[in-house]
């Protein structure tokens, strides 16, 4: 098992450096002189020079890269152009809100997907199954930036059950944003659970168990479901990473004070140190979650340890 973990960890290192390099090169993709673009049209030459110095653009490219990587490793992302505050501190402030939103969405997704997926697999090709599959298809086709405002209209404006935006009211504030992302995820999970469990239910060991006198319910929940959950758990872990990026849009809809909203605000104000750092943190979280899901797969499926 430790060899498996080590191998996966070593595979992550070049990918992490690749992402660091990609994020570093973003500034250099700005058309024209990045310092002039960031300082803005009409900026004085001394302001442009100050921006160039602050971003290290007056140094050779290789020096800039080494400087960037060593600072990132130390957790130093520089200073925000907009607020003059430490970029790392602003990220630390906003990050928990994004994680909270992702966890809430995951909870909603599981609450809906598990019963629906299981029922759909047990009664496959029945009307229940068709309804579940249609729901799954609607879910993956429905954009969150449409669904979210519809939820606001229905439950925050027409019936004032939840706040329209913000995070001030604790759990109440979390409901609508979590529903927005969670229901879309539940569509994917429902489909996954249905396929996986339906496949397990056709296996010989299930028929054997029933033939030996085990009730069908026990055969499903004690035997088949456990095996069916293996691919589902790994998809779940991967989808958590997707929730983090999906949160960028949901935070904008609900003015949720997370990292995604910080990223969009810093894009609009051309606060490039903040833009770079926010993108990097979200991307690194995404690959860490994928790494964790790889490890989880190795834990839940003993066959993987033998690879």
């Amino acid at each position, binding site marked *: 098992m430790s060899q498996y973990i080590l191998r996966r960890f070593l595979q992550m290192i*070049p*990918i992490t450096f*690749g*992402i660091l390099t*990609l*994020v570093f090169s*973003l*500034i250099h*993709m*700005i*058309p024209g002189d990045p310092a002039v673009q960031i300082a803005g049209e009409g900026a004085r030459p001394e302001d442009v020079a100050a921006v160039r110095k602050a971003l290290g653009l007056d140094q050779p490219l290789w020096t800039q890269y080494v400087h960037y990587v060593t600072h990132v490793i130390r957790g130093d992302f520089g200073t925000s152009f907009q607020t003059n505050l430490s970029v790392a501190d602003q990220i630390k402030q906003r990050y928990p809100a994004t994680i909270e939103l992702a966890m809430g969405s995951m909870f909603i997704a599981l609450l809906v997907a598990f019963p629906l997926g299981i029922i759909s697999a047990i009664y496959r090709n029945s009307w229940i199954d068709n309804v579940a599959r249609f729901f799954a*298809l*609607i879910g*993956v*086709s*429905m*954009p969150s*930036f*449409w*669904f979210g*405002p*519809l939820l*606001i*209209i229905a439950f925050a*404006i027409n019936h004032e059950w939840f706040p*329209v935006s913000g995070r001030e009211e604790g759990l109440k504030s979390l409901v609508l944003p979590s529903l927005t992302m969670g229901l879309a995820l539940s569509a994917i999970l429902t489909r996954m659970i249905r396929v996986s469990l339906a496949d397990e239910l056709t296996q010989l060991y299930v028929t054997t168990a029933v033939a030996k006198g085990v009730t069908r319910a026990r055969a499903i929940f004690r035997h088949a479901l456990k095996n069916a959950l293996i691919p589902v758990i790994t998809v779940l872990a991967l989808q958590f*990473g*997707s929730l*983090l*990026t*999906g949160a*960028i*849009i949901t935070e*904008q*809809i609900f003015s949720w004070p997370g990292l995604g909203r910080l*990223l*969009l605000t810093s*894009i*609009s104000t051309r606060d490039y140190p903040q*833009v770079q750092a926010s*993108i990097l943190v*979200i*991307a690194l979280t*995404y*690959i860490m979650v*994928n790494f964790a899901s790889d490890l989880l797969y190795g834990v839940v499926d003993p066959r993987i340890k033998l690879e």
Partner: protein
Amino acid sequence: MKRLLKNFAFTAGLLLTVALVLVAIAAPLLAPFDPNAQDTIRRLEAPSHSHLLGLDDLGRDVLSRILWGARVSLRVGFSVVILASLVGITLGAMAGYFGGWLDTLIMRITDILLAFPGILLAIALVAVLGPSLNNVVLALATIGWVGYARLVRGQVLKVREMEYVTAAKALGARSPRVIVLHVLPNVINPVIVMATLGLAGAILSEAALSFLGLGVQPPTPSWGAMLTSGRRYLGLANHLAIWPGVAIMLAVMGLNFLGDGLIDALDPKYRKEM
């Protein structure tokens, strides 16, 4: 084809997709008003007989803007799919056919791009390049080519060992000819499926970027940008938040249905790989 048409999902998807294409082509004829004509006195007016889906915040007809918005969505969608598939097929075919350091290099690049969340990279690219329709296409194609490359590489690895490929090489055919005439035609089916689903993804991504203000810029009608207005006037003009989303959903759903049907028809094995 008859078998396909008996599949309800495929038929529904085909009808929706054909409707989308026809609407996009015929928008100048179908739209009752100029999509940019403003009637600011009647701004945010609810749906009525004269304006079936109401007016937006600048007094423009919502129905006309939705119809013209189909052009933008399809233009972005097709451009992204064509660009991404051309790059992806070329690099994937080269990686699979030649192998060696070229394969390693291309696959490591795809690993890095796949490790990066797709929409995040698109946001990052548009943020630095500047919001415009062309930059949206470029950003989405940059993340899109990876899937085609991996798919084609995998298919080419299987096909290159086939006897007909060996025979072609033995008869003196050069590598480009072998790849184009013998290898690629036999790997095209899953690419068609991916392209159909990719079109749906591109339309959704363009709408998302426009919603965030990073895509198509005003006054060009875009479904995503229309939803941004809709969000601003929730409670005052809910029709702005409803109808553009219906258009997006129908377009994406139709293409997803079509893609699913094509999977069954062209390459049932692909469903397992997917």
